[in-house]
C-alpha cells in the first residue's frame, strides 16, 4: 500500500479508531459527557482529514475499495449525520434508564460499515460493510431493552436482516458464477446483460438492498422498527444506513451501466412505483409520527429511485442532492421529537404536538419547515430536491414513474398537512417537561436545529451554493 493510498484511507481508519477510543474510555470509567465530547471531536477529525486528503483522491485500493469524490461526498454526508445524531443522543440517553456509554461504540461501528459501503467496489467489501452496519444496528434498535416495542423491533430487524443477507450472498454467488469475478469493474467487462443468471443474481441483491432501503415489497419492518427504536437510532437508520446502502447501489449500477439494461430497469421502476404508492397510502392514516415518518421514508426512497433510473450524471447529482436534503430534513424531524420526548415516553403520538405552535413556537416552526420540505414546497431544500429528481426523470422521458411521483406527492401532502394543522390547532396541551438538566447540551441541540433549518432554507432558496460543490465532488475520479 502506497503512502497516498494510506492517506486516502486515513478518514476511514480514524472512524474505526473512534470505536476503540470509546471502548478505552469506558474501560477507564469515563462519564457520558466525556465520551460524548471525545466522540464529537473524533467525528470532526474525520471530516477534517477528509478535507485534508482531498488532493490525493481518487485512490483505488485494489481490489476492495476505491476512495473517490463520490465516496468522499457520501461519507462526508454520513459523518455529518452522525455528528448531529450523536449530539441529539446525549440529551436523550442521559435521561433514559440504560447506561448510555456503549451506545457510542455501536453507533461508530455502524457508521464505519456505512462509510465502507460508499467506497466499496467489490462484493466482499460490499458484504462486510453491510454486515458491519446491520450487526450493530440489531443492538442499537433494542438498546432500551426493557421497553416492549424495542425488543420486538430488534428481533424483527435481526431476523429479516439475516434472511436478506442470505439472499444477498446468493445473489452475489450467482453473479460470480456468471462472470467469474466479484470486482465491479471486471463484472462490467464480462457481463452479458441479457444473461438470466445475472438478472436472477441482481434481483436477489435487490432484495437485500430493498430491505435496507425499506422499498416495497421489502418494507414490512420499517414502521415497527422506527416505532420501537429510540428516536436517535431511528434517525440513524433513516439517514446513515440508507445513505450508505443507496451509495453502494448507485455505484454498482454506474459501474455496470445497469441503466441500459432493460429488464433490470423494469424491476427498479416497478419497485420505485410500488414504493411511492404504498408508502404514501400507508402514511395517510397514521397517528404515530414515527410510523408516519417510516412510511414517508418508503415513499421518499421511491422518489429517489426515479433519479436512479437515468444513470447519467444529472441523475447522480439529483440523487446526491435529494439525499442531502432528505437527511437534513429527517434529522430536524427527529431532533424535534427528541427534544419533546418525556423521560419514560417518546413524543411519537400526534396528540403531543397539538397546539405546539402556541406553546413552543420555535420548535413548531422548525418542525413545520421540515415537514414542508418533506412535502416538497418551495423555499425548502426538499423542493429543489424534488425538482431535481423530476428534471432527471423528465429528461429521460420516464413518464410513468414521473407521473406516479407527482400524483403520490399530492397524496403525501395530506398527511404532512395533517401534522402541520395539528401543530397550529387551538387546544394546547401543556407538555410536562421538567427543567432541563443539561443546559449546555440543550442549547447545543437547539443550535444544531437552527443550523439545520438554515441549511434547509439556504439550499432551498439559493441552491447554487451547494450544487457546484456536489458536481465538483462527483467529477473527482470520473
Amino acid at each position: 500500500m502506497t503512502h497516498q493510498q494510506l492517506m486516502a484511507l486515513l478518514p476511514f481508519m480514524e472512524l474505526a479508531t473512534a470505536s476503540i477510543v470509546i471502548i478505552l474510555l469506558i474501560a477507564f470509567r469515563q462519564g457520558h459527557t466525556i465520551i460524548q465530547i471525545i466522540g464529537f471531536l473524533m467525528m470532526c477529525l474525520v471530516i477534517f482529514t477528509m478535507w485534508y486528503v482531498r488532493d490525493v483522491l481518487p485512490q483505488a485500493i485494489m481490489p476492495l475499495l476505491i476512495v473517490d469524490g463520490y465516496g468522499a461526498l457520501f461519507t462526508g454526508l454520513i459523518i455529518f449525520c452522525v455528528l448531529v445524531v450523536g449530539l441529539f443522543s446525549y440529551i436523550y440517553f442521559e435521561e433514559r434508564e440504560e447506561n448510555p456509554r456503549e451506545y457510542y461504540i455501536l453507533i461508530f461501528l455502524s457508521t464505519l460499515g456505512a462509510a465502507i459501503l460508499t467506497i466499496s467496489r467489490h462484493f466482499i467489501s460490499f458484504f462486510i460493510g453491510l454486515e458491519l452496519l446491520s450487526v450493530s444496528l440489531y443492538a442499537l434498535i433494542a438498546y432500551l431493552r426493557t421497553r416492549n416495542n424495542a425488543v420486538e423491533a430488534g428481533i424483527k430487524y435481526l431476523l429479516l436482516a439475516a434472511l436478506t443477507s442470505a439472499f444477498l450472498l446468493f445473489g452475489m454467488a450467482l453473479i460470480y458464477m456468471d462472470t467469474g469475478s466479484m470486482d465491479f469493474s471486471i463484472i462490467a467487462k464480462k457481463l452479458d446483460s441479457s444473461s438470466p443468471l445475472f438478472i436472477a443474481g441482481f434481483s436477489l441483491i435487490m432484495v437485500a438492498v430493498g430491505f435496507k432501503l425499506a422499498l416495497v415489497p421489502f418494507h414490512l419492518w420499517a414502521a415497527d422498527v422506527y416505532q420501537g427504536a429510540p428516536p436517535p437510532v431511528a434517525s440513524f437508520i433513516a439517514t446513515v444506513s440508507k445513505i450508505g446502502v443507496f451509495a453502494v447501489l448507485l455505484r454498482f449500477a454506474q459501474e455496470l451501466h445497469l441503466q441500459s439494461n432493460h429488464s433490470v430497469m423494469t424491476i427498479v421502476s416497478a419497485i420505485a412505483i410500488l414504493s411511492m404508492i404504498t408508502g404514501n397510502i400507508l402514511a395517510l392514516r397514521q397517528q404515530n409520527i414515527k410510523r408516519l415518518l417510516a412510511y414517508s421514508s418508503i415513499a421518499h426512497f421511491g422518489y429517489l429511485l426515479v433519479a436512479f433510473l437515468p444513470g447519467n450524471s444529472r441523475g447522480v447529482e439529483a440523487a446526491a442532492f435529494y439525499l442531502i436534503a432528505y437527511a437534513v430534513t429527517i434529522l430536524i424531524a427527529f431532533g424535534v421529537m427528541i427534544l419533546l420526548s418525556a423521560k419514560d415516553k417518546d413524543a411519537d403520538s400526534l396528540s403531543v404536538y397539538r397546539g405546539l405552535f402556541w406553546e413552543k413556537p420555535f420548535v413548531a416552526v422548525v418542525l413545520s419547515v421540515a415537514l414542508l420540505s418533506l412535502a416538497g414546497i418551495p423555499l425548502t431544500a426538499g423542493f429543489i430536491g424534488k425538482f431535481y429528481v423530476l428534471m432527471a426523470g423528465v429528461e429521460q422521458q420516464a413518464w410513468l414513474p414521473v407521473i406516479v411521483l407527482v400524483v403520490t406527492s399530492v397524496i403525501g401532502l395530506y398527511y404532512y398537512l395533517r401534522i402541520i394543522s395539528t401543530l397550529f390547532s387551538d387546544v394546547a396541551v401543556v407538555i410536562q417537561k421538567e427543567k432541563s438538566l443539561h443546559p449546555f447540551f440543550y442549547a447545543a441541540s437547539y443550535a444544531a436545529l437552527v443550523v439545520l433549518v438554515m441549511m434547509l432554507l439556504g439550499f432551498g432558496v439559493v441552491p447554487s451554493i451547494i450544487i457546484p460543490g456536489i458536481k465538483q465532488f462527483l467529477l473527482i475520479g470520473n
Partner: protein
Amino acid sequence: MILVWLIVVLLSGGMLCWLIARWNPMAAKWIALFAVLADLAILMNIWLQYGRGTHTSTDTWMIQYQTAWIPSFGISFHVAIDGLSMILLLLTFFLGTLAVLCSWKEIHNRTGFYYFNLLWTLAGISGVFVALDLFLFYFFWEVMLVPMYLLILIWGDKNRRYAAYKFFIFTQAGGLLMLLSILSLYFTHGAKNGTYSYDYFSLLNTQLEPATAKWIMIGFMIAFVIKLPMVPFHSWLPDAHSEAPTAGSLILAGLLLKTGAYGIIRFVLPLFHQAAVDIAWWAMLFGVIGIIYGAMMAFAQTDIKRLIAYTSVSHMGFVLTGIFAFREIAMQGVVMQIVTHGISTGALFVLAGMIKERLHTRDIEKMGGLWTSMPAMGGVAMLFTMASLGLPVLGNFIAEFLILLGTFQANVLLTVLASTGLVFSALYSLRMMQKVFLGPTTSGDKLTDITARELIILATLSIAIVLLGLYPQTVMDLLSYRLH
C-alpha cells in the same frame, strides 16, 4: 430592481409583524398597513412614470430586472412588468390594503402571525404577476399557497380544516402538473436550440410538434383552470371562500383566482398559440357551463359566503370564455372583468364579513330586514349587488358587455347561452338582497351601522367600481402596453 423591492417590502414587513407582535400587537397592524401602502405608492409612482397615455412603441415592458439565480439549471431571477402586470399589481395592493384594514378588528388572537401570513400571501401573488422565468413563476405560485393555507386553517370558521386541506391539495395537484409541463418545455426547447433555459423570452420561440405542444399545454391549463376555477375543478372554491376569514376571502376572490386567468393570458396563449386555438371551442364551452352552473348554484345557497363564492364561479366563466374567443375586444373585457370582479366580489365578501361580525351567522335564512337598522350598509350592499348583476354605470357592465361583444364574433350560440348568465345573475343577486336587507326583521337586537373604518373600506371600493364603470379608459390605456 424596484420590482424586487416590491416583494422584499412585503416579505420583510411580514417577518417584522410576526416578531413585533409579541410585544405590541397594535404595532403589527400598522406595520402591515404601512408595508402595503408603501408598495402601492411605489407602484403608483411607476405607473405615473411609464404608464400614462396610449402606448404605441413595440417594447411593451416598462421595467425589467434580471439576475442569475441557479445558473447550472439555466434559472434566472427575471421579473418585469407590462400593462397587464401593472393592472393586476395595482389591484393586488389596493385589495391588500383593504384586507389589512378589514382584519383590523376581526382578528384578535395571534395578530402578528396573521399579518405575517397575509403579507406573505400578497408577496407570493405579486411575485406571480411579475415573474418572467418559468421556474420563478412556479416558485411564487407555491409561495402564496402555504400562508393562505394557514390563514384558512387558523383563523377560519368551523369547517376550516377541511376547507384548508382541500384548497391546498387541489392547487398543489395542479401546480405539480404545471411543473411537469415546465420541465418538458425546458427539455424540448433545450434539445431543439441547445440552450437550456427557463426564461420566458427564450421559450417563446420554441418550435413544438403539435402533439407535444398539446400535452405540455394541458399541464399548464389544468393548473390555471383549477385556480380560475373552471367547472368541474371548482369544488375547492366554495369551501375555501366560505371558511376563510374576511380578508382571506377578499384575497382569494379578488387576487388568487386572477392568477389563473393571468397564467393563461401570459403563458398559455403566447407559448402554445396553435394548441390554444385548437381547444378554444372546448374552453369557451366550459366557460359557459361555468357561467350558468355557478349562477344556478348561487341561487340555491343559504350560506351568504357560499353564495358569493358561487357567483365567482359564474363570473370567472366569463373570463375563460372571453380569453378563448381570441378577439382583442373580448380580451379587454376580460381584463376589465378581472379588475371589477376583484372589487365587486371583494366588497361583497367584506360586507358578508361585517354582517357576520354583527349577527354571528352566515345563514341568510336567519337574516332579514337589516336595512332598517343599518341603512348605510344596505345602500352599499345594493350598489355592489347591482354591480355584480351587471348594471350599466358600474364596472362589471363594461366588462361583461365587452366580453360578449367579442365572443359574439367567435361563436354565436355560446354567446347567447352566456348572456343568459346575466339573467341568472339578476335572480341570485336580488334574492340575496331581499333575504338579507329587506323583508321583516328577524333579529331583535339593535345593530350598529357601519363604523368610520368600515366606511373608509366600503367608500374606496364604491368609488373604484363607479370610476371603472364611467371611465374604463384607464385600464384600456394600461392594456395598450400589451395588446396592439
